[in-house]
């Protein structure tokens, strides 16, 4: 007790922070867990109903639709956001001119800075069938105008490609920063052994990027289930069935339809899936190491 008193200023400093986390992290988590087992009504008592909310979600065909969309769009985004930045970083690393390298890096990073409203809004207008620049270019080459965001044939691809466009530069910088830290003597040794440029990339650079790749994989995997802003901005009635993701489902159920119980249950399924995915990914990545 004496020790606690001695540190009272420090505890006092910590108070607002702990209060914040308690009110806005732990309490909602606990409250949400309780709600997910309740028949949550706005007025009146809220009896506990066991796993009913979870069963309702799992029996909802719409849930499985958004689940499938999440997996497809998430996996596509995962692949593109892993390989594109890697190729870009390796290719940038081979450029001799410092200013060109720097300029490219700066430009490619730019879209990461902006919100999905800005980036998505831009692409909605650029992809518009009547006046959008993309369709103007297609027509210039004699093609037919395409309704990229009104036909469900292209909608998912557009989501995946725009997310690659937005995040490529960000991930690329992580790779570049790791490349800078590779010990130059490794390259010298490879040169002594008569390695070509390609061989140096293949046998020195890529293996040395392993730990960065793991970080990128981890971040991207966790991002899959959190997908929300992009879809919220870019989805529309015509393509919703193909692109709406789990977080959209939670939002629509909970906020628009007031079925708070099932919406919260869906949220907890996401948390459960996040932990499972984290665990599996870590296991797989370690396995790779051995």
């Amino acid at each position, binding site marked *: 007790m004496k*020790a606690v008193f001695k*540190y009272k*200023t*420090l505890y006092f*400093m*910590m108070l*607002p*922070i*702990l209060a914040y*986390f308690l*009110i*806005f*992290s*732990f309490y*909602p988590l606990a*409250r*949400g867990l309780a*709600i997910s087992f309740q028949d949550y009504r706005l007025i009146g008592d809220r009896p506990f109903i066991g796993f009913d909310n979870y069963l309702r979600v799992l029996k909802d065909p719409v849930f499985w639709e958004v689940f499938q969309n999440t997996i497809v769009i998430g996996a596509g985004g995962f692949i593109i956001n892993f390989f594109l930045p890697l190729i*870009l970083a390796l*290719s940038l690393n081979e450029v*001799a001119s410092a200013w*060109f390298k720097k*300029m*490219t890096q700066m430009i*490619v990073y730019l879209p990461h*800075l*902006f*919100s999905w*409203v*800005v980036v*998505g*809004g831009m*692409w909605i207008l*650029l992809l518009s069938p009547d006046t959008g*620049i993309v369709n*103007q*270019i297609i027509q*210039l080459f004699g093609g037919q105008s395409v309704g990229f965001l009104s036909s469900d044939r292209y909608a998912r691809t557009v989501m995946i490609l725009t997310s690659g*466009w937005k995040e490529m*530069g960000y991930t690329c*910088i*992580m790779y570049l*920063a790791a490349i800078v830290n590779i010990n130059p003597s490794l390259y010298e040794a490879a040169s002594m052994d008569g390695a070509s*440029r390609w061989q140096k990339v293949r046998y020195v650079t890529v293996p040395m990027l392993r730990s960065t790749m793991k970080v990128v994989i981890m971040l991207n995997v966790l991002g899959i289930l959190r997908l*929300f802003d992009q879809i*919220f*901005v*870019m989805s529309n009635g015509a393509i919703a069935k193909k692109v709406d993701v789990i*977080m959209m489902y*939670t*939002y629509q159920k*909970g*906020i628009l339809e007031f079925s708070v119980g099932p*919406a*919260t249950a869906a*949220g*907890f399924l*996401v*948390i459960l899936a*996040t932990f499972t995915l984290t665990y599996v990914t870590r296991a797989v990545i370690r396995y790779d190491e051995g």
Partner: protein
Amino acid sequence: MKSMNKISLPGRLFDTINVLFLLLLVLTMVIPFINTLALAFSSNFASMQPGIVLWPKEFSLEGFSTVWNRMKLYLPFTNNVIVTVVGTLGHVFLSSMAGYVLIQKGLPGKKWMLTAILLTMMIPSEAIMIPLYIVNQDLGLLNTLSSLILSGFVSGFSVILMRNFFLSVPYEMSESARIDGAGDPRIFFTMYLPLASAGLATVTLFEFVSRWNQFTPAVLYINDSSKYTLQIALKSLIVDTDSTSSNFMITTNVRMAGIVIALLPLIIIYPYVQKYFVKGMFVGANKE
């Protein structure tokens, strides 16, 4: 090193193809922005005409004046500035204070607090959006800017980042200050904060960018259009088709002008951002 490399024909060929590939990529990044800018500065009529626009057609500021004055984008813009500035200042202050407390040696319960904060980083905020909504409702925060300011007022990531910056400050220094009679607040404000200015800059820039772009909380907590922030105002301007049902038609230049206005503050701070982002990524990734 360089002189030893013989410039072979395949090598030069590779270099050329490589640079061309990168140029192509740069073009795909740049053209959308140039197109957006060019359309924003075109006249109402010209912006609705098909064509590949890389330079304003019939240069005009109509788009900007319509979106700013007639559609009153200055209101959400002001709200955005308030939320960003107040939220960022609070976030940086609280996160560094937590970081300072969590480097103290021999503080009972420190490990426990650190674990709790790390735990908060594992809960995706999107997954608890409904209970978070209810908490804000119970606190009477719905439809107030305070709800947006409080959302993410501290974050585990920033606490860890500041803590890592503070750990590089020699601990003996604070011990000698303590012997000279300085209290924790004084040591924190006059020694640690100035010495970790690079850390402060990193967290400030991180938070500024994410606050300026803050979207999900605004979608959830704000219904009243007088409390709209820039991002939701833009969403209804660009995306929601029912906004075109008002008495005048929203032309492309107006929409693009809205986008340009939202881009501007970030473009201004961009030169500083990149440098600190890389730094922050690595300091933050090291959780001991």
